[in-house]
């Protein structure tokens, strides 16, 4: 089987799994958790394009997510715009902002880039918090309408699940395609050595800004969808902590792997739910698990799991050989 065919098969199986999952979870609250996993997957995939492929860190991605949510929330509640239209405006506005700030910010490298994006995140958080007349301030913006397609209103977990996941799958498909394209290869070259990439004729400066913009647009779409499924937003969800959580998702899942981003998003969303039984100790165990995962699976869950699978297959094979 060629690599391309295998890729298509994997995506097909993944899509099928996503589409049939709700039938096993009728009426369970877990469907609601899966909706959030979908949103987080979108965010992690978007950040992974920047962090995993192009090797550029962003500690301010929660700000793009928040901006998408707020633009969508404000346009629909205060100006009565259709949620779909608001989503498009949020995506375009976010893209434009990322494009404009991308040029100066992405000139920076390493720790300096981390600091600049961190600063951007904090500035946006302060804006969400302090412009009470526009955003509703710290106590939030409520009454955001659900997304609607003619008479179909996405107001329950099942409908939201399909809405969010279909868009998440599209984002994943787009990202997989992008990573296999000439641009994807150029990005990986930049991540390995920007100087070498430029010597080979890759326009690193523009490409980095472009991927930053794409990443911001994906975050805005996720933000807008979040606002319309939650129907309420408050600045606390878009703070520095969430930026870090997103970076953690990408790293735990596996840098430069789209399915890894899904795994990272899934683990970081589900784990706190399971750890609830530990009550006050949940945060400690959560931290410990993250440390253990990064220590023993440095390439992320996706490569860790592949290695484990290969190990098991190898054992079985060698056993078979001995018996023969």
């Amino acid at each position, binding site marked *: 089987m060629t690599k391309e065919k295998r890729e298509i098969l994997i995506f097909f199986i993944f899509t099928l799994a996503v589409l049939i999952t709700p039938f096993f979870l009728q*009426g*369970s*609250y*877990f469907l*609601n*958790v899966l909706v*959030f996993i979908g949103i987080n997957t979108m965010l992690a995939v978007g950040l992974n394009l920047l962090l995993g492929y192009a090797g550029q860190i962003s500690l301010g991605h929660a700000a793009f997510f928040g901006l998408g949510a707020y633009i969508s929330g404000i346009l629909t509640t205060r100006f009565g715009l259709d949620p779909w239209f608001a989503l498009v405006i949020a995506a375009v506005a976010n893209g434009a902002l990322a494009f404009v700030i991308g040029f100066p910010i992405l000139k920076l490298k390493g720790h300096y880039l981390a600091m600049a994006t961190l600063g951007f995140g904090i500035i946006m958080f302060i804006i969400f*918090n*302090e412009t*009470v007349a526009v955003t509703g*301030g*710290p*106590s*939030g913006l*409520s009454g955001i309408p659900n997304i609607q397609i003619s008479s179909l209103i996405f*107001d*329950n*977990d099942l409908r939201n699940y399909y809405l969010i996941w279909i868009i998440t799958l599209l984002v994943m498909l787009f990202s997989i395609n992008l990573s296999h394209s000439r641009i994807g290869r150029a990005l990986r070259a930049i991540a390995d050595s920007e100087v070498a990439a430029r010597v080979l004729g890759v326009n690193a400066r523009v490409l980095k800004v472009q991927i930053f913009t794409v990443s911001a647009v994906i975050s805005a779409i996720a933000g807008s969808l979040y606002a319309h499924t*939650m*129907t*309420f*937003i*408050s600045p*606390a*969800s878009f703070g520095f902590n969430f930026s870090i959580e997103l970076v953690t998702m990408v790293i735990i899942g596996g840098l430069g792997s789209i399915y890894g981003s899904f795994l990272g998003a899934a683990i970081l969303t589900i784990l*706190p*739910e399971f750890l*609830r039984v530990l009550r*006050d100790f*949940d*945060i400690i165990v959560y931290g410990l698990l993250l440390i253990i995962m990064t220590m023993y699976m440095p390439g992320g869950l996706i490569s860790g799991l592949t290695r484990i699978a290969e190990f098991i297959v190898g054992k079985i094979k060698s056993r078979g050989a001995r018996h023969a």
Partner: protein
Amino acid sequence: MLKKMLRLILSMAVVGLMAGSAFAAAPIKIGALFSVSGPASFLGEPERNTAEMMVTEINKAGGIKGQKLVLIVYDTQADATKAVQAANKLIKDDKVVAIIGPSTTGDTMAVIPVVEKAGIPLVSCAAGIKITEPTKKWVFKTAQNDALAVARIFDYLKKKKISKIAILTVSDGFGSSGREQLVFQAGKFGIQIISDETYGPKDTDMTAQLTKIRGGAAQAIVCWGTNPGPAVVARNVKQLGMKLPLFMSHGVSSMKFIELAGDAAEGIILPSGRVVVANQLPKNDPQKKALLNYVENYKKHYNVEGDHFGGHAYDAIMLIKGAIERGSDSPAAIRDQLEKTEKFAGIGGTFQYSPQDHAGLTSDAFVLVQIKNKGWTLLK
């Protein structure tokens, strides 16, 4: 025809009996959402402790109409997303009949759409006026509105003939809601706000804002925030040698504030629930019995003074208990009975809900207290 009717009645009776006996054995599940960790843990922790204590006490006394109570508590970490997930879990997985909390206005606003859709009564422990205005079918609250606290302070200022004030509020949910009310009500009391300053929830020095206030013509300072910010303000005021009287919000009416501010706390006046001055209340105060009982009980269980915030959870549990006692333990019945709550003397005040009012308190829910000798004195 008669036969049919008889059969119907008989089968209904059998079903009723079975259901009745099944319910009598099954415990009543009540959910709780508190911000036990995270930035609002100063609210969530005493609330959780109080709720757990109350449920233990109620069960020890035989439960509600013979049914035991089970409390399921989830931590929201003051994050709207986590609050919504936890609320969904309580409703769909744990199948609770009512929910108390969340602790903050933001979390409460986030879970309102969830409970409204599912039809589960929610008794919030947050103060924001938006929670119950406009009135929502399934949502009640126990924490006093900021509007009432502001009215208490302004009433006092008017009596003391102070008409020019400076306000210093924290930029979080509590502070912005307080600021809104301060600005909104000032005109009504003939008070002029000379300067309107804010500070960040994590700021550790407010001398810049205070110096600015000192330069103006303000006759008093009203600071609106929760620990630890206001303690810094109190200390800064003292360091700067400012002689202006300092007023605080009910957000600091716990011993923790006096501990943090030290000597600088002396003389500060604030509106507070009656819980901190339970001993000084006149004998005929309707809340006195509940207050003393709560303070004593909390001390016995947790070795610290029960505060105002834990009181919100006390009231929420007791209101739901009352509603179940009067009606049944189905969510709809609890809601209907909650709305009919009359003259329930709790920790936060005397509650009187109605179809138009799901907040249930009047301005007498607050008393003004002054900090003297590291303790609270009731201001008459």
